[in-house]
């Protein structure tokens, strides 16, 4: 039993009770072209079941408030979507371990209704092993490049956007080859990526994909070497756990 103090409960209750104001909700929905009505003001907008009562307005196609930052950030995130789906597959076989963790702190509190958690159908994770192949040259990964506000100047905006799309296209192609059981071909594409984008926005993603390709190609030694370097340089990256899991780096 996970016992909590009254003070902890007070803090958690305060955290759960915060809601976006009606103005915030409308700003978000209008920016998406959804134009959703928000009856009852901010305190009742979109919280669990009550949100479903909001009326759906006529959608407009224009992205009225989406800034270039928004667009490029969205592009940035799409690079991680592949990882999301790989992880989705790998977690489909996972069993719920709620009992091992004990009850939520919040279970002892009067709480608002939360939408039910979706269940994940059980499926075995896809095998990743491939026949061993000669190890190619271990290439030095390029340092990651930050995509930040300062890079989003008018001058570079268009070029950067096109470049980011090209990067994603190449990484998507490499990921496709890897998924198709062609790790050597994926590595070739990743080498092209490194040459074309030595300071690519998605350089960490490229390295993680390269590590996965080496694992799939049976070159565990190279994969581990790259993984150690990756975990040292990108230990805070959301990819770190994935890389660690791939190679079981000590």
């Amino acid at each position, binding site marked *: 039993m996970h016992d909590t103090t009254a003070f902890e409960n007070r803090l958690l209750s305060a*955290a759960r009770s915060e809601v976006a104001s009606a103005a*915030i909700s409308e700003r978000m929905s209008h920016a998406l072209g959804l134009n*959703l009505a928000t009856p009852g003001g901010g305190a009742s907008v979109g919280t669990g079941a009550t949100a479903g009562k909001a009326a759906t307005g006529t959608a407009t*196609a224009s992205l009225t408030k*989406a800034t270039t930052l928004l667009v490029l950030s*969205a592009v940035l995130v799409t690079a991680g979507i592949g990882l999301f789906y790989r*992880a989705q597959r790998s977690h489909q076989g996972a069993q719920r371990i709620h009992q091992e963790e004990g009850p939520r702190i919040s279970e002892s509190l009067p709480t608002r209704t939360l939408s039910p958690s979706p269940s*994940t159908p059980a499926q075995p994770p896809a095998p990743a092993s491939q026949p061993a192949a000669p190890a190619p040259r271990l290439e030095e990964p390029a340092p990651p490049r930050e995509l930040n506000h300062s890079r989003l100047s008018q001058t570079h905006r268009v070029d950067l956007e096109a470049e980011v799309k090209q990067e994603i296209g190449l990484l998507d192609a490499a990921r496709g080859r890897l998924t198709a059981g062609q790790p050597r071909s994926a590595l070739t594409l990743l080498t092209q990526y490194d040459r074309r984008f030595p300071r690519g926005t998605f350089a960490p993603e490229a390295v993680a994909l390269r590590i996965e390709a080496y694992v799939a190609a049976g070159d565990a030694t190279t994969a581990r070497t790259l993984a150690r370097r990756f975990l040292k340089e990108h230990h805070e990256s959301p990819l770190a756990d994935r890389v660690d899991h791939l190679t079981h780096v000590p």
Partner: protein
Amino acid sequence: MFRPGALPDDARPSPEGGAGMQTAARERLATMFRDHHQTVWRTLRRWGLDASSAADAGQQAYVVAAERLDDIQRGSERAFLLGTALRIARANFRKANRLQLEEDMDLRTLDAKAEGVDGLSDLQLVDLALGAMEPSLVEVFVLYEMEGLSSPEIALALTVPVGTVASRLRRAREGFRAVAKRIELMLAREGGAR
């Protein structure tokens, strides 16, 4: 591939094609917005963003969802949105509004930041506590204890193994307890037995 202005009206055509599917896509996105935008926004707030930045980052997550709507498995919309929103936050708001900590938790830093805690609201105290914890622990703690996600759903959102969620949750609970206790003592010391 993401296209500027790619909203539901511009959604990629499905195999069936036609405006009907576009409407269906838009309605699905609208449902996702109604059901989850508060959770997304609140999670980003607890992650450390102010109200406006949380709205911006949450909005970006929905733009990504609009683009990838066909790829989002039914039932995993919330995990997709939360995972995407947190990735956006990490990429664009890296520790901008967070305490700068090197370790999981630094009570000395908390002490320095928390002078005058008696004047803070409970919500500000929560953010003070979470700000003293390592971000990856905060994410799991908020999603599990405050937003009610299951461990597999959190694992899906954060693309980490379920076992990692469990270990982070355990550490997060320990951290939150220690920080909350410290804040409570501060309140008592300042005569703020509210």
